[in-house]
């Protein structure tokens, strides 16, 4: 009679071998030794302890999952300006414009006469001007361009010393990251 197959060895080790094959096992020392060794190893492996976490851990895990799942629920919007809250956009636009303006006034190795943006110095209508071919800046220009200084001031949007720091301080981590990206992009572009 043939020896047990791998499946039958497992059945035998788990006490599920068919009566017909059990007869072979009773007569075959080789198969019996194999089953004993297999069973012992299964018992040894199964007896390996698994430390139980603190009872508080389970609620913590559920909370983590809930948070992660809720983050998934939020509508997916592409990275970019659309992730920034509207109230932050105008001051950010002004802030970014100031950064670009300051970069533009720095000496350039190339394109010294082609600043990307500038702030007009006219006292009556200080409007931010942006290059028309710059899509990112045109979005900002659309947002802040029509505002004259008085209107912005009346709306509480005019900058006073410390406003930029305050705005940055109030940004979420995500918004700060996006602002950093925008500014870095502009600095890189201005330097090139």
């Amino acid at each position, binding site marked *: 009679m043939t020896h047990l*197959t*791998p*499946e039958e*060895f*497992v*059945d*035998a*080790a*788990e*006490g599920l071998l068919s009566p017909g094959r*059990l007869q072979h*096992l*009773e007569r075959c*020392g080789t198969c*019996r030794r194999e*089953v*004993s*060794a*297999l*069973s*012992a*190893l*299964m*018992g*040894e*492996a*199964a*007896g*390996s*302890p*698994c*430390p139980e*976490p603190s009872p508080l*851990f*389970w609620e913590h*895990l*559920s909370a*983590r*999952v*809930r948070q*992660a*799942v*809720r983050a*998934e*629920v939020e509508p997916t919007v592409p990275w970019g300006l659309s992730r920034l809250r509207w109230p932050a956009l105008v001051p950010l636009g002004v802030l970014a414009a100031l950064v670009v303006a300051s970069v533009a006034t720095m000496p350039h190795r190339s394109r010294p006469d082609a600043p990307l943006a500038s702030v007009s110095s006219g006292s009556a209508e200080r409007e931010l001007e942006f290059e028309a071919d710059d899509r990112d800046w045109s979005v900002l220009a659309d947002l802040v361009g029509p505002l004259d200084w008085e209107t912005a001031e009346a709306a509480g949007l005019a900058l006073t010393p410390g406003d930029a720091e305050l705005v940055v301080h109030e940004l979420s981590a995500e918004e700060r990251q996006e602002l950093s990206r925008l500014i870095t992009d502009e600095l890189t572009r201005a330097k090139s």
Partner: protein
Amino acid sequence: MSNASAVRLWPLGRTSNWSLMTATPLRPAISAAEGSGPLTDAELVAVTLEGDSGAFDVLVDRHRRAVYLLCYRFVHHHEDASDLAQEVFVRAWRGLPRFKGEAAFTSWLYRIAVNTCLNKVGSRVAPHEPLEDADRFEDPRVERPGADLARAERAAAVRRAIQALPKKQRATVVLRLYHELSHQQIADILGSSVGAVKANLFHALANVKRILGSEP
């Protein structure tokens, strides 16, 4: 005289984690939906897909322990297992609309867990367990601490050997020996047949034996 009676069989019949239920009270909306008893997994999935994410929270509470322990068996590290368990549930959340209910939710969730764990640890070399890990099983009140230490070292060696197994063999061992799932359940999870699961288990244990034999 029957020699078969001398064969020591692997102990069966211990409490399984498979039908783990939660003691967490259901949310009011879900409680209202349940009639006479707790909602089944399939019903909770349906409620979730109708837009009540609270039902998914109940599923998480119900299966978090089993999923965490499964992950732990793959990585043997609490923080990693926590991260993996979270990832499993997030993947389940994403894939829920594709869950057709043809298999049990638990099988489906376990499949995600096994795939997540294997993807994570598949290419990683099995970590060497320091001796301190073995020491924690030593009880100084025991008269023969040396024997206990040897047993702990042997258990650590077995765990290392299991971690060194090919992916499918490793998953089979974890699901069968640690989680005590039936061969049919394992076949459902791994997408194979009962015969293949048994053969996998046999070859996995043969490999463990070989690895243990080759260790210094």
